């Protein structure tokens, strides 16, 4: 399997009024061509920031990438020129954003917004771009594409707009599609449609997908591999089945418990589990594990030492001093 994107020790900081926020704290992972990586975590855990770093779209100031490497097809994206980067964005890495209501330009037609990337990257003429745009809209399942390319975003429903967003990201047939919570703002039925669409397109076009979400439910039948992030750290990384079967970090466990289960044996009156407390603010320097204050499994060591990612199983890593299956402290 070819590794197309490899992130090593990425560190991102934000300078805010409240102090320096450590948004991403030295994370490493890789994405393989044609596969889907799911990144899960609460708001503010650094999952979006790490993706924006890949696109080099972190606003500076106040954001700053302070360390690490992002290797895309072997070249470090943090070192390439802005011109080169412009080509990589859109042409080689496409991105779909969370809110389809705001991520499309309200005063430009859909056709122009999809087509312009092809005109820039592929040197298409206006006619070629339009032809291809119609094909793309067909591909993402929008009816009457030759009419609709003349329309404006406000004339589309939320789900349709997200389809447009996807078409836009796929316009130049990128090798990676980054989807930053693309379904969060949508109705549940539409969510499923978008997930299905993505799967179909991935099968047809063969690109890698990085799917960011805070909803473990959505990603279950989409991802090949999963990463769970908390407070700027990767706390667990595993194949999708492993993760759901044997979650090895208390945080992952809590996330899974907070999912509503249709097959619940305990009946309808069951109260969903919530995680007490708030994630750390990123400013305060924490000595131990950032999840320790909210953790049910906490031991003394957790408050003193931040656990590294530990291989708990075959290709399954978790950052915890405790084996959550046994409740015993790991001896390391």
């Amino acid at each position, binding site marked *: 399997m070819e590794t197309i994107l490899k992130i090593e020790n990425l560190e991102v900081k934000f300078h805010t009024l409240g102090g320096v926020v450590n948004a991403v704290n030295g994370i490493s992972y890789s994405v393989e061509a044609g596969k889907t990586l799911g990144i899960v975590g609460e708001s503010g855990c650094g999952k979006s920031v790490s993706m924006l770093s890949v696109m080099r*779209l972190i606003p500076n100031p106040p954001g700053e990438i302070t360390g690490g490497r992002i290797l895309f097809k072997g070249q470090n994206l943090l070192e390439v020129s802005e011109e080169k980067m*412009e080509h990589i964005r*859109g042409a080689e890495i496409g991105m779909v954003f969370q809110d389809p209501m705001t*991520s499309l330009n*309200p005063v430009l037609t859909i056709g122009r917004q999809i087509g312009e990337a092809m005109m*820039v990257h592929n040197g298409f003429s206006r006619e070629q771009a339009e032809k291809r745009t119609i094909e793309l809209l067909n591909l993402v399942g929008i009816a009457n594409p030759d009419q609709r390319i003349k329309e404006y975003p406000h004339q589309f429903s939320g789900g349709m707009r997200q389809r447009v967003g996807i078409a836009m*990201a796929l316009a130049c047939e990128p090798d990676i599609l980054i989807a930053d919570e693309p379904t969060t703002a949508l109705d549940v039925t539409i969510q499923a449609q978008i997930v299905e669409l993505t799967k179909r397109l991935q099968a047809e076009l063969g690109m890698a997908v990085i799917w960011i979400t805070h909803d473990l439910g959505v990603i279950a039948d989409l991802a090949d591999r999963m990463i769970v992030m908390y407070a700027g750290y990767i706390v667990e990384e595993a194949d999708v089945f492993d993760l759901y079967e044997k979650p090895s970090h208390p945080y992952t466990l809590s996330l899974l418990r907070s999912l509503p289960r249709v097959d619940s044996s305990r009946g309808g009156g069951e109260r969903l589990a919530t995680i007490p407390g708030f994630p750390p603010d990123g400013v305060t320097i924490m000595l131990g594990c950032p999840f320790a204050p909210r953790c049910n499994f906490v031991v003394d060591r957790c408050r003193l030492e931040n656990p590294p990612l530990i291989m708990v199983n075959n290709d399954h890593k978790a950052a915890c001093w405790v084996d959550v299956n046994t409740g015993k402290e790991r001896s390391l």
Partner: protein
Amino acid sequence: MTRYIIRRILQAIPLLFIISVLLFVLMINTGDPLSTMGGRRVTRPEDRERLSRQLGLDQPIYKQYLFWLIGNDWTKVDLDGDGTAETQGTRKGILRGDFGTSMVQRGKEVTDIILDRLPNTLLLMIPTEIIVIALSLAVGVYSALRQYSATDHIITGLSFIGYSMPIFFIALVSMYIFGVNFKAWGLPYLPTVGMFDPKVGKTTGQVIQHMILPIFSLTVITAAGYSRFVRSQMLEVISEDYIRTARAKGLPNRMVITGHALKNAALPLVTIVGLDVPLLLGGAVVTESIFAWPGMGRLFIDHLSRSDTPVVMGILMMISVAVILSQLITDIIYAWLDPRIRYS
């Protein structure tokens, strides 16, 4: 759209009615046009009594308003003071397009008086507005894109100063520097007052020379506010998600700005300009006064100082109509430029 326009125009009618009543009541009570009639001596009692009657100033205010509104040709008026109204009125009233005649320039049609001056005001104001829009777009966008740079700080500071300055101050300063001091230093200097040098005549070159200082002053003040607005709009727009989307598509920066950000940032300016256009019609009263520009603003001041109600009302109503019209036009243009907005 047509229905929307009709509805807006219908809505404007009560609005104009309120405005006219308000202003009329104010104007009628702002001094006596017959006190000295611009002369150095107080008007003789006999003449004042007679003129009050003949010009209808002795009538109760509602009647004066009525005559102003719908005219008095349906009734008779008393000219000779014998207590019986025997002369047929001749006024048609503003609703029938008769703005009346001036008290100061006895017998001269208000419409003629205003039309004499209107082109001069437009001549000064339209170039100003164009320069202001172009300048503030350029400056505002530039400084937004270089937020926190030294240039941005300087531009922001300067625009704050311009924005805080009363126009007469910048006018006096510019007259002092470019008129008085340049002359004293033997540099080519600019004329400070009037529309042209009568010795030379009203040539295009002359008029343009005389336009420079007033336009400069107006531009400094207005562009300061506009560019601040454009800058903040631009800052807002470039933080929008769709700009990030455009960047994520790999568009070069120039295309992101001109293709995606500028139109969104410039759109709200249409509203601001629409609100300001009628003000310009009034010709920035102060500017015209200082630079002795023979426009509407000076006309207003001159006639206000002699309580010439028909002329003052004529100017103010014209401006009010212009305000309403330009709001309507602004809405239409906005709808035309912004696909999201549709009126019905």
